[in-house]
């Protein structure tokens, strides 16, 4: 089952997942966590939380019920690398989950697969079944007495917010996908209020690689503060869209050269909740210390109407906001309305200044990452493409002119 996505050769293709699992199972639990900490790996979903630290927190919690959740609710616009990983390298993901389970003392793993990827479910279940038969899941995993670990696949139902880890947990428990207050964090009280590690698909697959090839090998890729390689989902106006692997630290310009998007006027990095980077900043680097990213890069060609882009993002957020907290629910609606006003050429600069303030409020007052980041793209487009999107002739007027 593979939807043919193009790109370059991925390191994942050359890794023996089970070699990684065996290496990890031969280690003590604290050593497993230390290895991940030493690798410097940060979460691949985009927020960039150090994976070793997360495992350490969950491992330190008391209690015999703990959970490993694989966040496969890949909903960030422009992101599709997890679909490719799940299609082509599910063994790496499941090995990574078993390693994480061993590290923190969990016996159950759950893959939360987004509803839009329901066609992958039978494929994943088949791989799980095969791993059970091979003794790599189930009782005494890998021949380690007393280490039981199994995985089930749960299906989401079409809600972007469920990619937020506490909303995901609420959804798994049978509730509306509304984010919880934090603290307590999931590592302390997550699924069924037991210690829970929620990791992105790519994070878990990369963890298996670290054990298969070693920490030094992993750190030979990337920068000091952003170690390792990263999968990028490239879409939009470029000759060769697809999933690419690059070491962290690659410049926007170099990336665009690889994918045939050199004449871009801007790129959206990090999906709809990320930032819009104009041509003048193409020397910047993709890394947690410069432009943090979950790997989504949407290329905008010279003809792209940046206001239409901003409006598209805002429609997305206004639709996907869970509605629980006011700054996000109302803020996104206001932002979207303003994009409409800009389109009609009836938005005053003073009102835009107010919107910037509102954006600041949303960033600090929203309950979760959705509201905290949803105005980023609009604000960066306003900042870099103000001339293009302000003082437009009213649409009706344009129509009359062209008629």
């Amino acid at each position, binding site marked *: 089952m593979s939807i043919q996505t193009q790109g370059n050769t991925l390191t994942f293709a050359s890794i023996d997942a089970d070699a990684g699992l065996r290496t990890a199972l031969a280690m003590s639990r604290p050593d497993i966590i230390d290895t991940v900490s030493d690798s410097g790996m940060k979460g691949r979903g985009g927020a960039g939380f150090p994976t070793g630290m997360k495992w350490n927190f969950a491992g330190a919690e008391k209690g015999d019920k703990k959970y490993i959740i694989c966040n496969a609710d890949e909903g960030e616009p422009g992101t599709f690398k997890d679909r490719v990983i799940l299609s082509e390298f599910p063994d790496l993901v499941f090995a990574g989950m078993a390693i994480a389970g061993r590290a923190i003392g969990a016996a159950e793993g759950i893959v939360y697969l987004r509803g839009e*990827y329901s066609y992958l479910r039978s494929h994943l279940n088949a791989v799980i079944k095969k791993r059970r038969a091979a003794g790599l899941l189930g009782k005494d995993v890998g021949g380690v007495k007393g280490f039981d670990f199994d995985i089930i696949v749960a299906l989401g139902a079409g809600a972007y917010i469920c990619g937020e880890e506490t909303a995901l947990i609420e959804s798994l428990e049978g509730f509306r996908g509304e984010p919880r207050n934090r603290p307590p964090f999931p590592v302390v009280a997550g699924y069924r209020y037991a210690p829970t590690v929620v990791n992105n698909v790519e994070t878990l697959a990369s963890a298996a690689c670290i054990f298969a090839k070693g920490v030094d090998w992993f750190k030979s890729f990337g920068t000091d503060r952003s170690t390792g390689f990263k999968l990028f989902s490239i879409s939009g106006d470029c000759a060769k869209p697809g999933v690419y692997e690059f070491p962290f630290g690659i410049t926007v310009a170099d990336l665009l050269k690889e994918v045939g998007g050199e004449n871009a006027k801007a790129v959206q990095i990090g999906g709809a909740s990320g930032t819009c980077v104009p041509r003048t900043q193409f020397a910047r680097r993709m890394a947690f210390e410069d432009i943090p990213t979950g790997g989504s890069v949407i290329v905008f060609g010279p003809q792209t109407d940046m206001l239409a882009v901003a409006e598209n993002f805002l429609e997305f957020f206004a639709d996907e906001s869970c509605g629980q907290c006011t700054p996000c629910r109302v803020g996104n609606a206001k932002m979207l309305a303003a994009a409409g006003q800009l389109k009609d050429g009836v938005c005053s600069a003073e009102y835009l200044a107010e919107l910037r303030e509102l954006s600041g409020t949303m960033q600090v007052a929203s309950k979760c990452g959705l509201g905290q980041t949803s105005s980023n793209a609009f604000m960066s487009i306003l900042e870099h493409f103000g001339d293009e999107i302000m003082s437009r002739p009213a649409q009706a007027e344009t129509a009359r002119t062209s008629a």
Partner: protein
Amino acid sequence: MLVTQQEQLRAQVTTLVDRLGPGRSSLVPILQEVKTQYHGIDSDAMQIVADLLDIHPVEVYSVATFYAFLNPAAEGQFVVRLCRTVSCDLAGKDAIARQLESELDVAFGETSKDGRFTLDWANCMGMCDQGPALLVNDRVYTRVTPETVREIVAECRAAHDGHAAERKEGYLV
């Protein structure tokens, strides 16, 4: 709903609950199954699920209306969802949207008079490198052109059960 139909529904939902478990965690999977089987989740179904899970029906309603794929409203046998997010937008989703509306003779958010097709939008469905993309039930079609819209719809019309014909791989390259 007739009493006999209601009893039949109760029997079917009971089988589902037996299989998936009576815990609250089963609510979403149960509703997914009900939705797939009945193309909607009516108030009788919600009441039955609530009874069996021992929760208030408003809880069921609240969850069903939260998730796009659990929309309780009656939908067609084929739910066509066109991705409207930015990459598919850049790839020309507007032309596909117009073609779908013409081909199916429905507007977005509506169900065709014969009850076979519901046309709706999807937010980013992870096919950004192969847009425009759409889902028909749980089947994905990529690099859709106005011409393939006609073929996809024809396949659905020719299909007897809930699935389009088995030719999907043709669209996945």
